[in-house]
Every structure is written in C-alpha cells, then in structure tokens.
C-alpha cells in the first residue's frame, strides 16, 4: 500500500489517427499466410468480375434473345447463367472459408504473441494496472487489428475494383447516360458518409448506455445485502431510472437516424433510376438505345451504393484498429524480465547466468530502490544471510518489508547495489533457473481453478503421487483434502472460493513444500483463522523451514522468536538486527514493539 502507483483509470481512445508504421506492422502479420492471401484475393476478384458482368448477360438476353426472338440463344444463355451461379457459389464458399481462416490465424498468432510477451513482463507492468485493462488488450484489441489485417483491406480492394469496373462499363455502354446517372453519386456519398457517421456515434452511445445499465444491475445484485441493510432501495431505483431513461433516449435517437439511412439511400437511388429511365425513354424513342441497355443501367445504378457504403465504414474501422494497435504494440514492445536481465548483463559486460542448484546464501550489497525514480523506498541495505538461516522482517506498515522481498524474488531490480544469491547477481540471472528454486507463500493465497492435485503440482508438474502425499501430510493439509468430495480430484472454484482462508493457506504451504525450494519467502497471513487450522499452520511452517533459507514477514510473536535473526525495518533501512533475546537486551525499536504488543494484550484483558 503506497502512493507510488500510477492511477490508470483513463478512458481509452476508441480511434487514433492513421499511423503508417503501425499499419505496416499490422500487415506484417499476414506475411506467413501469403498463399492464403493470394488465394482469397483471386477468389474475391473472380466474384467481383462475375458480379459486374451479370447485368451485361441480362442485357444480352433481353436485346438479342427476347428482342430478336432467338430462343436458341436464350437456352444457351440460361446454361451460361446457371454455370456462372455454380462457379460463384463454390468460389464464394472457398473465399469465405479462406478469409475466416486468414483472420482467425492472424488472431491466434497475435493473441498468443501478446500473451507470451505479457507473461514475461516485469512486475511494474502489473502493479496497480486494473486486470480488466490487460484483459481487454488480449480479448478486444487484437480482434480489431485482425479484422483490419484479414478482411478490411481485401474488402476495400474488391469494392474499389467493383466501383472502377462499373464506372468503366457504364461509360463504355453509353457515356452520356453514364454521366447523367453519376450526378446522383455525390448525393449518395453524402448520405452514406454523413448519416453513417452520426449513426455510428448514436449506436455507440446506446451501447454505452446499456453497458451502464448492466453494470448497475450487476451492482444491485451483488450489493443487494448492503443496499437493503442501509435502506438504499429508493435512491438506487432513482439512479437506475436515470440510466434506463438515458438508454431509452439514446436508443430512440439511434433508431431514428438508422431509419433515415435506408430511405434516403433508396430515395437517391430512385432519383437516379428516374433520370436513367427518362433519358433512356428519350433515346429509345429516337432509336438510339435498346431496352436491355436501360435495364442494365438501372441494374448498375443499384450496385453503386455498396462500394461507397464500404468506403464510408472502412475509415472508422482503420482508425479504431490504429487505437488498438497503439495499445497492443505498446505492450508487445515492452521489455520482458528476460530482456531486462540481458540488458543488465550487457551493461555489466557479462552474460546472463543460468544458476546451478543453489545453497541459499543471500547477500544485499548497498541496495537502494524506489518504485518510482523520485520516491526512494529502500536506502543502502546491506545484508548477508547464511544458507539455512531463518530471517524475520518486522517493522511498521510501509517500512519496506515487502519491497525487500520483492527484490529477493527479483520481481524488481535494485536501482543501486546488488542482490546476490550464492554470489550470483540476480539482475543478470536467468530467471527460470532462479525462481524454480524459490518458494513463496503470500498473504493473499492465490489458488487457481482446477483440481486440488493440479494446484499442488503447480511448482512441480511431474511430482509423483507419493511426493504429493508426503508434502500434503507435512503441511497438515491431508485431513481437509481427504474430506473433500473427490479428494485430490476435487474441483477448486476460481480463486478457491469454496475453500476457507485457512484451507487455502495449508494448500499453499503444501504447494510450496512440494516445489522444494532452496529459498523460501513467507508473508505471514494476518487474517484470523480458527484455532485448529492455526495450529496446523504453525506446524506446517516449521516443516517448511527445515533446511532452507527463509525470509518471513512476521506478524506473530511466536514466529519472530523462532527466527535465527530478526531484521527491524523502518523507513527503508535496517535499523536493528539480532536474535529476539539480543534485541530485547538492547532495548531499542524491537523492545518497544514487543512491549507494545504485550501491553495491548494486557489492556484488552483488563
């Protein structure tokens, strides 16, 4: 608990300006699938071409077949049209599959890449960053990028080809009538872009409003007891009514805009059709134009809106992909812990060292550290711990106990000085080789969903049944595990909510014991548990300490007294160190602390 974290609660931008390097980088994800891209593009092109020549076939059928009463030709054309339909059917099937495959593969790659990087990121990344934010990078943002890489670009190209193709054809068929029909195009563009823009905004507002309603409902359900206990039902209803009303309004607004969209498009289309028919009729009377041509023109006119509609939509898709790319690439480009080690090694002119089996000797050499450069937390800490020693850290909240442990676990790198284990500098150590020899039992015992067995094997995946049982026995967790329905195979819910806090702790002890670490870090739980479990935990702790170097953030007097050495931390410094008896004799900080605890108990009893 400190003021040293950044408050990352800012609203995220939905769109960002176009950024060419990011755009190129997004396209880079399609590289492994160049073949699929080529195939999909080919199929798309085929679809586009066959789509734009269709009215020509119809025109031919009307003018040459029906107009000239050529039934034979009609038969041939029927076969041609059916053949075209069949070809388009299979082509578009392959194209849909290909596009999805491309998109999903990119999504898989990008998501995995991001996740792998996130796993390697140092602690400073996770500290005080709401889980939801990281979550949304890996779930939503990658999706926006994928859509851009796999379909948006191809779609734009195919619609562009369509548009150019249609324009070319109608100009070729009759350039005067073509130019005439183009006069409605600016109107169409205006409707599609203008209305589309406010439409997207309106639906965006509606989505936000419904998300608010749902969040409120969620809070009402989860906080119902509190609401009822405080008699807040009425205020809560008023608040809900406000959100409900807001949703109603924004939905109606969005609907109204939505309902002007298509009628307006239709109207513009009708205007164009009217013009074509009028001009067509004049030309037809003059014998300069066939009926089939007019029909074909009307058909083509109806094909204009789709490309323009696509273009109007695509820009906002690109911009939102840019916003996502900025966030995702920002994370991917962060330095991982391993890269940090490599950088540290490079700076020191050495190489990253893979640790052999360690004895557990820990040395702090003039270590200073701050989570933020301007606020130092530890000052000049020096410390030498022999293998097998048990060290108790005591001191007031915020003194720096947790920070010392964070440095020992190499969750952070010291800003000055060195933290060393068996003489190896942790800053340049190959982390898996070190952490696999490190055990931690933290206050907030984190249990994963899965079976009890999976949780136990967390630190040693290949542990045999006997090994597991031995660890469980030593940790005093056997009784409760065997009582659970299914025993070792019993399912633990997310975060172990179906276990009591004491049971979670015992499980964490067993988990740590099984991993057989050389160095053990223990943050003693402060929460109260029932006497039986308490005794089990004390025993488990003893078992756990045998033959390992241990650092304990101690809250219990008994733990402190059992330690080989006590470090009293205050204001980021080691102010006293020694055994319980030594420190009591000195009559310094520790003696005061000890007195205070006793006095308190006494007064409570009085």
């Amino acid at each position, binding site marked *: 608990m400190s003021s040293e974290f950044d408050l990352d609660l800012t609203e995220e931008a939905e769109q960002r300006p176009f950024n060419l390097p990011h755009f190129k980088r997004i396209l880079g994800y399609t590289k492994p699938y160049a073949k699929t891209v080529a195939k999909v593009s080919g199929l798309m092109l085929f679809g586009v071409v066959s789509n734009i020549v269709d009215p020509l076939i119809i025109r031919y*059928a009307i003018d040459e*077949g*029906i107009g000239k009463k050529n039934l034979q030709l009609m038969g041939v*054309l*029927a076969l041609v*049209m059916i053949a075209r339909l*069949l070809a*388009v*059917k299979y082509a*578009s099937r392959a194209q*849909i*599959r290909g596009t*999805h*495959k491309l998109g*999903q593969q990119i999504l898989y790659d990008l*998501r995995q890449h991001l996740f*792998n990087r996130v*796993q390697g990121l140092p602690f400073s990344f*996770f500290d005080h960053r*709401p889980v939801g934010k990281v*979550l949304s990078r*890996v*779930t939503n943002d990658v999706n926006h990028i994928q859509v851009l890489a796999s379909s948006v670009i191809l779609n734009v190209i195919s619609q562009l080809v369509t548009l150019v193709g249609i324009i070319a054809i109608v100009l070729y068929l009759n350039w005067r009538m073509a130019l005439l029909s183009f006069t409605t195009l600016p109107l169409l563009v205006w409707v599609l872009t203008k209305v589309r823009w406010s439409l997207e905004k309106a639906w965006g507002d509606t989505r936000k409003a419904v998300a608010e309603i*749902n969040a409120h*409902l*969620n809070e009402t359900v989860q906080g*119902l007891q*509190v609401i*009822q206990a*405080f*008699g*807040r*039902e009425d205020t*809560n209803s008023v608040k*809900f009514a406000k959100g*409900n009303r807001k949703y*109603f309004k924004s939905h*109606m607004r969005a609907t109204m805009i939505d*309902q002007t969209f298509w*009628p*307006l498009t239709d*109207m513009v289309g*009708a205007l164009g059709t*009217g013009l074509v028919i009028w001009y067509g*009729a004049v030309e*037809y*009377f003059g014998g300069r134009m066939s*009926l089939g041509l007019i029909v074909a023109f009307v058909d083509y006119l109806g094909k204009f809106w789709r490309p323009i509609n696509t273009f109007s939509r695509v820009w906002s898709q690109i911009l939102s992909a840019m916003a996502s790319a900025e966030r995702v690439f920002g994370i991917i480009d962060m330095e991982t812990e391993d890269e940090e080690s490599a950088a540290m090694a490079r700076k020191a002119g050495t190489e990253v060292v893979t640790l052999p089996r360690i004895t557990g000797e820990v040395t702090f050499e003039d270590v200073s550290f701050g989570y933020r450069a301007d606020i130092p937390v530890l000052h000049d800490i020096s410390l030498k711990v022999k293998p097998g020693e048990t060290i108790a850290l005591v001191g007031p909240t915020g003194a720096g106990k947790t920070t010392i442990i964070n440095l020992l676990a190499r969750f952070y790198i010291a800003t000055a000085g060195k933290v060393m284990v068996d003489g190896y500098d942790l800053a340049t150590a190959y*982390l898996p080789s070190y952490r696999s020899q490190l055990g*931690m039992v933290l206050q907030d015992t984190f249990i994963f969903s899965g079976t009890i067995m999976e949780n136990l094997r967390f630190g040693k995946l290949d542990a045999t049944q006997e090994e597991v049982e031995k660890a469980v026995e030593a940790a005093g967790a056997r009784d409760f595990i065997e009582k659970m329905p299914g025993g070792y195979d019993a399912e633990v819910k*997310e*975060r172990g909510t179906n276990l009591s806090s004491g049971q979670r702790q015992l499980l964490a002890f067993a988990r740590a014991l099984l991993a057989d670490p050389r160095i053990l870090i223990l943050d003693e739980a*402060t929460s109260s548990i029932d*006497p039986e479990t308490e005794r089990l935990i004390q025993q488990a702790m003893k078992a756990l300490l045998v033959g390992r170097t241990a650092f304990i953030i101690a809250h*219990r007097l*008994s733990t402190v007294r059992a330690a080989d050495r006590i470090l009293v931390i205050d204001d980021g410094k080691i102010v006293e160190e020694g055994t319980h008896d030594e420190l009591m004799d000195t009559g310094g900080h520790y003696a005061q602390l000890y007195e205070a605890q006793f006095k*308190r*108990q006494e007064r*409570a009893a*009085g």
Partner: protein
Amino acid sequence: MANLKRLLRYLRPHWFMVTIVIIIMLLLTWLEIQPVALQKRIVDVAIPAKDMGLVLSLIWAYVGVWAARGIFNYLQWYLSELVGQKVIYEMRRSIHEHLQILPPSYFTNMGTGQVMSRLTSDIDAVQQFFGYGALLLVQMVVLIIVVGTYLAFLNWQLMLATCITFPILFKTVFWFDHNVRPAWKKVREVMGKLTETLQENISGIRVVKAFAREPYEIEKFAAKNRAHYDANMDRAGIESIGQPHLDFLTGISFVSVVCLGGYLVVNEKMSLGTLLAFNGLVWSVIWPIRMLGWLVNTSEQALAAAPRLFEILDAVPAIRNVPDAVMLEEVEGRIDFENVSFAFPGDTREALKDITLSILPGERVAIVGGTGSGKSTLVNLLPRFLDPTEGRITLDGKDLREIDLQSLRHHIGVVLQDNFLFSATVHENLALGRPDAERDETRRAAELAQAAPFIDHLPRGYETPVGERGIGLSGGQKQRIALARALLVDPKILILDEATSSVDTETEYLIQEGLDEVMKGRTSIIIAKRLSTIRGADKIVIMDQGRVTMVGTHEELLAEPGFYRRLFESQFADEDVEKALALELAPLGGNQ
C-alpha cells in the same frame, strides 16, 4: 403460449400505436409493389405508345412512391421502436424494483452469473422481439403472401416456375439458422473460457512468476486460443456453406424468370413489362424468406427468455412488511431471542436450535464458535435478512416482524467479513447510508475505522474511484471502509461479523480503541476469532452446532476447560501460554 400471451400483455397500454403501426405496415406492403407496377406501365404502355408525357408523369409517380415509402417506413419504425422501448423500459424498471425486495439469498442460490445472464441476455432477447422481431416477422409473412399473390396474378405459370426452388430455400434458411446459432454460442462459450483463463492468469501473476510457471501458463492459454480458433472455423464452415447456397438458389429463381419469362414473351404469352416486373419483385419474395429463419429464431429466443424473467418477477419475498408495521423512532437497544430456531429453506437440519438470549442496551456481546456453528445465521436474524422458523426476537420488547423493515434496518449497522463496495468514489461509498454527509463527517468516520491513513495515500484521496471499475483495494482496506460507512449512519445497534478479520493485529487494535469510544451507549454484537477482540466484551457467547453452549465473561469462561480455553491457548505460542496465563491471573500493574 401462456408466455406469449403474457409478453403481449405488455403491449396493451400501447394498443393505439400498435394499431397505427399495423395499418402503416399494410400500406407499406402495398407500396412495395408500386415502383415495379409503374415500371411495368412505362415499358408496356408508355414506351410502345411513344408517349413521353406519360413516361415523365410515371417517373414522377415513381419518385413519389419512393418518397412515400421512405416516410411511412420511418413512421412505422419510429412508432414500433417507441412501443418496444417503452415496454422494455417498463420491464427493466419493474424487474429492478422487484430485485430490491428479494432476499440476497435468492440470488446467491441462483448464482450471480445466472442472474446476470437473465438480466442482460434474456432482457436483450425480449427487447429484440418487441423492438423489431415481432413486427418484422408479421411484415415478412404478409409481404410473401401479398407479393406472391400479385405475381401469381400477373402470370401464374412464371410464378410457379420461380417458386420451384422455394422449398429448398426454406429448408436451407432454417437449416442455416438452426446450425449457425449454436456455432456462435459455442464461439462465445469458448471465448468466455479464454477470458476466464486469462483473468486468472493476470490476477495470479505473482504466483505464476514466483513458481516460474510461465511456460505452462503459455501452453494452457494456447490450448484455449486454439479452441477459439477451432470454434470460429466451425462457424465459418457453416456460414461458407449457407450463404453461397442461398445466393445460388436466389440466382436460380432469377434465371428462371429471365429465361422462362423470355420464352413466354417471345411466344407473346406475356408482356416484356411483366417480365421486368417479375425481375424486380422476385427479390421482394425471396428476401423475406431468407429472413424468416432468423426471425422465427429471434421470436423463439424471446419466448424461451420470457419465463426466466417472469420467474424473477413472480418470486415472492418471504420477508416483507406486515400491513400495519410499526415505524421505529427511538431505540434503546435491548434484544431478546426467545426460543429461536432456524432452518434454511429446503434443509431439514436446523442451523439454530432453541436459542434464548438477552442482550441489554449498551452491552457489548462477542459471539465465538467454530465454522458452521451458526454465528452468522444468528446475527442475520437481527436486521431480518432471515426470519426465525420458530420462536421470536424482540427489540425493546417489540417483535421484529411487526416493525417496518426499512426503519428497523436504519437502526442496525452491519459490517461483514466480505463487503461489497460500489463503483463510486471512496467518499460516495462512505456516505452510502447518509448521502448528505459532509466531507468532514466521512473523514471522521474513516479515522475511527482506521481507514483514513490509506485513503490519504490513494491517488485522489476521498475522490478515488473504487469498486469494480476503480482501484482494487485489499480485503482489509475494504473492511475498514465498510466499518466507517456503518459508523457514519450512527446506528443504535452495531453488528460486526468478522469485520476486521483481514486487518493486521496492529490496526485492529487501533480500531478497537476507536470503537470503544463510539460504542458507548450502543449495543454491539461482534463475531471474531481473535482473542484481542473478544476479550473486552461484556458478554461472550459460545456457540456450537447451532446452540448456545456457554455465556459468560472472559474470566468466567477461561476458568472452565472448553472451547474458549482451547482458543485462548492456540493463540499464544506454547511457551507464551503460561506467561500469558500468569499475566492474566496476576493483579494488574507492572507493565501497564
């Protein structure tokens, strides 16, 4: 059917608008045919007659028809959405209203996930039905019938030929919708699991790193990622079969119109205008068919969702105000349990058995007992989160069941082990029970609960957002905020159910000191495991398996072997016990 009826009943207050919508809908169906009919007249009448004037007036009519269609379309959708949204507004309101009078246990039994899915997806399903599903369904059916009849009237042979593919079209449409929905559902499920795995990984990243488990986690995530890929490709497979096939069938209808129609025109059995009309209108029959599958399914979903909503609406809370409930003005704070027994609904075992206990005004009572001994159940009876199955509880001599619920709860402050904070600022959370509280009042309460120090360290102090969408607080911090928010209400009776269990001993001691101050003249009931908290109580109640086994002061209970003695011993290291006991028994002095 009963569900449909009940759903439609929501439309009753809006019958007038519904009628207008239906009239407009019929008008629109008629207008759907007009542009094509006009085109047909241009081709069949005006052009052969070379009557440019007629052509022009028909073109004007053509543009006019589209304008009318636009206007009526707009009107229809506006009105139907208005009705639909009003219905949904009302539905949401009544459900929310009802939520708040149900006991929290109703939702814990149902599972928060289940409740939320009803309140979001199920309401969504009903909203889609009222918003557009029902209207479109009717409109599509009418359109198919009207346009189909018109076309048959124009030329029934050609209509028949066009219809040849319709049975397959129908079949494909329903096949598609039948398969694509489960496929999408699967995608969502898999995505849910991926998110779960991810969330757990990020929340537990400390442990993952401490055990150097990253490679395993990466593999685990990759499996979910793969499953998501597979589910999506399955869905894409169905879509890639469905859509092109539907397009193909639609195309075949057009080909038969052009070719067969052409044959009829060549043989002068039909006019060219009729052919063109067919060409224009066949689409108006086919797209409604293509939409039917989706619409029928939307309606089915709404009908399946409705009973799940009705179930919540129909749930009758067991704990309610009696008709002539007494408003509680002043409270002294005397509480009597008279032969109280309690069993959870559907459970034959009694969680509390025949409890008789008196608590005097201003008394401080500690309740001690093992897990499942009934401590929490006992205190939950006081604010009437539960009602006894037998016996009665009185407050200042009045049966709790005769007191107005809100006024009763107003006088009781409850702080639990696990406290819910709302997504709001710290100040707003503190002021929950007294929204008008001034800044210095909330601060004072926070100081008493030892919450002030950490609040001051938050980035925006009392204005820092907390809760789900704010900064995450530790269990101990949440407990202190909950305590402060209860103190701010200034209740006559305070219940602390392991309210400081996650707070460290130091802070807990300070909280105790603060509470001693505030609790003067108030009745307090404390459930705790730490001896330091229990010791100072006027009365300690020992519970075991739903019964009160012992009542007495710290000294009285310590004198007898039993649960309390064991508890005492366990909280001191072996060698401390004697010393502590000696201290306990020795007259006070020395160290003090």
